[in-house]
Structures are given as structure tokens and as C-alpha cells.
């Protein structure tokens, strides 16, 4: 009889250990995916930051007196490059979007500028980058949602805490910027 009890206890321990390993690895995988998602956002944000100086130069050539728009964009770019936490990055992202919107609105007033090929190329590049930032953000937020759900639901939550799997922040840009994304339609 004691051997039966031992076998049952042994089997239970094996099952628990197996569950522990699987759950732990699942949490690690999702956490890494979220990390990868954040780097993917970073890459696209960097790409946009790299476009900004050229864009500012191009507009300056035709509208040198629109100082305020240039300063806003340049300041937003600096904030974006200095941001370290996810929240700061998202805030700087929203700021950059609305500043770029202002800059492109200025450009709209100069038909000769819109006829310059290098400017339309920059605009197309910017529009593509905006789409890619949005795509990277969707991926990140989807992963974070899965991670948070898993990490908070029973029984995974029993080990999530002790092993240091805290909830993760969503990448949220400010509402007004979200509702009114930069319009960079290319008019041929």
C-alpha cells in the first residue's frame, strides 16, 4: 500500500513540475516576444527620426519663416531620441506625429515645394514609416495583451509573481494624436 501512495505522490510531483516548466517557458516566450515587439517599434521610430532633418531642410528651402513649425518638429525629435521608457517613447511619438502634421500643413501652402521630387519621395517615405510604426505597435500591443492575460490568469499567476513576471505596459499614444493621424497623402 505504501508503494501505491508513493507512486501517486511521485506522479503528482512530476505533473506539477511539468506544468511549472511549461508555464514558465510560456511566460518567458511571451515576454521575449514583447521585448522584440518593443525593439521593432524602436527601429521604426528611429527611422522616422532619421527622416526628420531632411524633411525640415526641404521645407525650409521654401518656407524659411515658418520657424515655429520647425522648432516643434526638432524638439519632438529630440524628445523621441532621448526617451528611454515605453511611456516616454509613446508620448514623444504622439508629439512627433502632431508636430509633423503641422509641418506638412505648412508645406501644403507651397505648391512649388510639393512639385519637388525629393520632397515627395521624403513624404512617401514618411508615410510608409508611419504605417510601419502602426504595424509594430499593433504587434507589441497584441503580444502584451496575451502576456498580461496569461500572467494574470489562474493558475499561471501563482508562479508569475514569484518568478518576476510583472504586467507590461501597452504602447498608447495620446488620444488626440491617435484620432487624427498625420495626413501624408501623396497627390500625384
Amino acid at each position, binding site marked *: 500500500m505504501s508503494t501505491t501512495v508513493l507512486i501517486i505522490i511521485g506522479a503528482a510531483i512530476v505533473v506539477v513540475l511539468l506544468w511549472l516548466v511549461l508555464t514558465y517557458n510560456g511566460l518567458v516566450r511571451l515576454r521575449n*516576444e514583447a521585448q*522584440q*515587439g518593443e525593439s*521593432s517599434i524602436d527601429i*521604426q521610430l528611429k527611422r522616422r527620426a532619421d527622416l526628420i532633418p531632411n524633411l525640415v531642410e526641404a521645407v525650409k528651402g521654401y518656407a524659411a519663416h515658418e520657424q515655429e513649425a520647425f522648432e516643434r518638429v526638432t524638439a519632438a525629435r529630440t524628445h523621441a531620441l532621448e526617451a528611454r521608457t515605453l511611456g516616454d517613447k509613446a508620448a514623444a511619438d504622439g508629439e512627433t506625429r502632431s508636430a509633423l502634421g503641422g509641418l506638412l500643413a505648412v508645406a501644403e501652402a507651397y505648391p512649388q515645394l510639393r512639385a519637388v521630387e525629393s520632397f515627395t519621395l521624403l513624404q512617401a517615405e514618411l508615410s*510608409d514609416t508611419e*504605417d*510601419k510604426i*502602426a*504595424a*509594430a505597435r*499593433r*504587434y507589441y500591443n*497584441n*503580444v502584451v495583451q496575451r502576456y498580461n492575460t496569461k500572467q494574470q490568469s489562474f493558475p499561471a499567476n501563482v508562479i508569475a509573481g514569484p518568478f518576476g513576471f510583472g504586467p507590461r505596459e501597452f504602447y498608447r499614444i495620446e488620444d488626440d494624436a491617435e484620432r487624427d493621424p498625420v495626413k501624408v497623402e501623396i497627390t500625384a
Partner: protein
Amino acid sequence: MTLQEQIRSARMRTVLVLFLFVVLVALVVAAVYVFFGQGFGLIMALVAVGYGIFAYVAAGSIVASASGARPVSKEEAPELYRTVENAAIAAGLAKTPDIYIIDDAAPNAFAAGRTPEKAYVAATTGILALLDRRELEGVMAHEIAHVRNRDVRLMTLAAVMVGVISMIADMLLWATVFGGGRNSNNQNPIGAIIAIAAIILAPIGGALLQMALSRRREYLADATAAELTGDPEGLARALYKLAVDQHPLQHVNRATAHLWIESPLRDHHGLRSSVGGLFDTHPPLQERIDRLQEMGGFQLPPIPAGGAEA
């Protein structure tokens, strides 16, 4: 159903179909055992496994050449490139799949390659001409969804399993006709009848399961695509245009049918399969559009009766 519910439901149904697949294989194995006993059954199992591995390996890279696809550069097709890149980013793929174009006026697209690293997507010139950017985004997201969900590998495996089942069934049938089975004299007749029935029905059952699996994965890819673009309506509009379009696709065969965004085998003259689409690789386009409408909360006009059936 909401998007997440649809994804969950498609996953559950995939598991169900795979389970039935395993049951089918077990039945075939049991039939072999009843007929020939352990010795011959083992030899047959080895042959079947060998054939399966060979078929799986050989199925690797025939798709692109078989459908007349050619690789395309970013300069040649910037919009196609961008939509694929964006969908790949949204899906979290480590690299953007290679992109091919097929010179064919019929609008269609497919994804192939067994791992996300080796994956590629192809679009016909017809679909590039037919769809606007938003619709193309939906379609390419559907293809990227197939890549992320590992559908190519799953469907290749399913095709190989059906092939193996058919091969075993053929061998058994052949053995029954010409040899009467080695051990048949000491088997009970009811067992033998069940075994024969299993042999005849197994390949059909396998094909049915394969098609059911393919349709489940199409629904899942639609739902995943909606998640990737955040725009179910774009894909729904594309499917609507595909439903109304009347060009037949040229480079088509049954073996690669499950790869396409919509069934390349559909009949343009209104002749429908009498078994209610059980052998179709794709669900009806109207049903796919309906599900996208459910998750997106929008409404497109129904596909006109003259439109083709998927």
C-alpha cells in the same frame, strides 16, 4: 463572434480535425493488423513512414515554379512590398518573406514555405490591378497570417498523411484482390468486412478531413489578418471584388489549391459540387465576408447571384 473568439474557435476546430486525422490513421493501422497480422503490418508501416518523409521533403520548393511565379524587387512593386513588410511587422516575423509576382489576369495570391524564415508570398498581376491599397493590405495580411500560423507546414503534413493513407489503402486493396490476405483464413469475417470498408473509406475520409482543415485555416487566416491590419473591412472588400471577378486562373492544380487566398478551382459557370462543398479547400466567400463583418461591425452588399462561388 469577436475577433478573439473567432481565432479561438478556429484553433479548437483545428485540434478537432487533427484528432479525427489521428483516429483515421489508427483505423487504417487496425485494418492492416486485422488483415495481415503483425509482421506484414510492420513492413507496411515502415514503407508508409518512408514514403511520408520522402513526400514531405519533396514537397518543399515546387510551388513557386509550378505556378509560374517570378521574384520581384522593391523598385518594381513598391506598394506590394510595403503592404507585405507592414503585415510582416504586425505579425512579428523576424524577416519579410520573399515576394513573387505571377503574370496572370486572374486575381489571386498565395503564401508558401514551411517555416517563417523560408516563407514567400506571391500575388498575380491580376490582383494588383484589381485591388486598391487598403484591400491589398488585407489580402497580403491574410497571406502573412498563413505564414505566422504555420499553415503551409500543417497543410503539407495533411497532404502527406492523406497520401500515405491512400497508399496503404491501395496496397491493401491490391493484396486483397490478388492474395486474399495472408492471415485471412483465421480471421473472423465481420472483422474482415469492417477492415475492407475502412480501406475503401479511409482515403475519402482523409481527403474530407484535409479539406475541412484547409477551410478552418482559411477562417483563422482571415481573423488573424484582421488582427494584423486592424481593418477587417479592407479584406472583406477584397474578397467581395474577388467574388465578382470572372477570370479563371491559369497555373492551377489540386495539389496547391489550399495555398491561395480564394479557391483557384472554383467553377465560373455555376456548376456547384453536389456534396455541399465538402471537398472545397476554401469556405464560401460570402461566409468569409460575413464573419469579417461580424468582427468589424460594417456591412457590404451581398455578393450578386451571378458572382462566382468560391
